[in-house]
């Protein structure tokens, strides 16, 4: 199971990367895509939408399940990965390259509340136990 050390994580299995311009890139973790299986459809939030932390804002659908994606932090959606519309399998192939959407965070304090790689590893292990 791959959990890059330079990313932040949520307890709902999203990863977050803080970009140099301050925006937050969001995707789903290797563990999440592994549980879902082959993805067939990804629904991203529209650019301009304002999200609250924890709000349902997208769906990843595999042949056996459809799971909601939650906003890791509050803020405005500033972009979405259009490539996933036609190639959702990219998430299975490389979940940390195949980002879903970007948020411009409205509350920097929320970024500090995200899990680090070690925290996320412990979460996954505790869920497996």
């Amino acid at each position, binding site marked *: 199971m791959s959990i890059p050390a330079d990313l932040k994580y949520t307890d709902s299995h999203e990863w977050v990367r803080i970009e140099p311009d301050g925006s937050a890139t969001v995707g789903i973790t290797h563990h999440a895509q592994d549980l879902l299986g082959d993805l*067939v*459809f990804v*629904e991203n939030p*529209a650019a301009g939408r304002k999200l609250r932390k924890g709000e349902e804002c997208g769906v990843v*659908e*595999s*042949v*056996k*399940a*459809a799971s*909601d994606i939650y906003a890791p932090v509050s803020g405005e959606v500033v972009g979405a990965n259009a490539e996933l519309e036609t190639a959702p399998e990219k998430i299975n192939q490389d979940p940390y390259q195949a980002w879903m959407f970007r948020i411009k965070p409205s509350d920097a304090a929320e970024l500090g509340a995200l899990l680090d790689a070690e925290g996320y590893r412990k979460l996954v292990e505790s869920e497996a136990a």
Partner: protein
Amino acid sequence: MPFIPHTEEDVAEMLAAIGVPGVEALFDEIPAALKSGSLAAIPAGMTEMEIGRLMADRARADGEFLGFIGAGAYEHHVPAAVWQIATRGEFYSAYTPYQAEASQGTLQLIYEYQSMMASLLALDATNASLYDGASALAEAVLMAVRAHKSARRVLLPRNLHPRYRRVVRTIVSSQDIELVEVPFERHSGRLDLGALGEPHGIAALVIAQPNFFGCIEDAAAAAAWAKQRDALVIACVNPTAMALLQPPGEWGADIACGEGQPLGVPLSNGGPYFGFLACRQALVRQMPGRIVGGTLDLDGRRGYTLTLQAREQHIRRSKATSNICTNQGLAVTAAAIYLSILGAEGLRNVAAKSHENLLALLGRLEGIGLRRIFAGPVFHEVPLALPRPAQALLERMRGEGVLGGHDLHADYPELGDALLVCTTETKTPADLDACAAAFARALAQ
């Protein structure tokens, strides 16, 4: 795959395997107070002979009529082969079976049904059917609002079937969706979009084709009006008429739905019928219900499978696209056989003959002084103005064995004394004469 219920031995074996004394014990966790207890009010069972006798008596009481009532349910000829095949053991089930992929024949039939309907409607995808036309329209409205995302106002024409309007209202009433009625033009019976002024925030416009009055709408113009206002277009259509009229996919509809009964399902006291629902590819993930897809198995052979299930309620629970996870399997089986026996040309002939018969009947009725309420083209039914209330007239005709039409007064008081009269291909010139003669006698009273 045959569907044979478990034998008593099977049940005993299964109970023994899980160590439970009897089937009743499986329900122990339900508190006794919640169980219904006595079923004393339910009469005892009847033998096959008794029930046959009862049903024959009831059928006699209904009588046999020469019918000219349409209004959403249409008497078409159903070739004998349709139900001969549909009632074969392999098909004779109301549902898409559980472990659906074990029933490849059933899935292939649904797939063929979907393909024929998509072709008839000129849209990309259809589902395996819904309960009836009215509930299919309600699901189409919910689909459009989900797809539109920003608006929750839906325009519902007054010239749409009154029962459909009521069902839509019931189903969407608790979903924070605003339904706005579109009036009809008094001279043509068609949509009067101009009367709405400049409405904004519209998620969808529903267009009935033909509308409840049998009038043929300028659907392309109405659809263009909706598109200019960033609204989706829902077509509620008569499937038989689609063999003659431009199909909704060609005039800009995003979603099409309607009642499938005219396609091989007998009138049968109002049901069971089936609803059809189709859409453009981009909306397919908003479509509720079962959808059968074609695929290849491990050896590269053609196979069929239920697809897009991940958003249904057995997986998504309360977040499902819809709480409808079933279809009218048996009625759809009949429709698939009906469509394949008739073919495109046969269906066109049915539609054309129904229309021709209506014009022939209209000529006879205008000859005895009745007149049309609306000008303009109609498919196979037409509203007529009556000199006095329809009810007494209809009762008198009924006494002569003729059902003269559907009384419009309760639903459309603004039309005065008005009757909706329908013909299909089943009527002969002699039938039309008999109908006109019955009208003449009743009017002379």
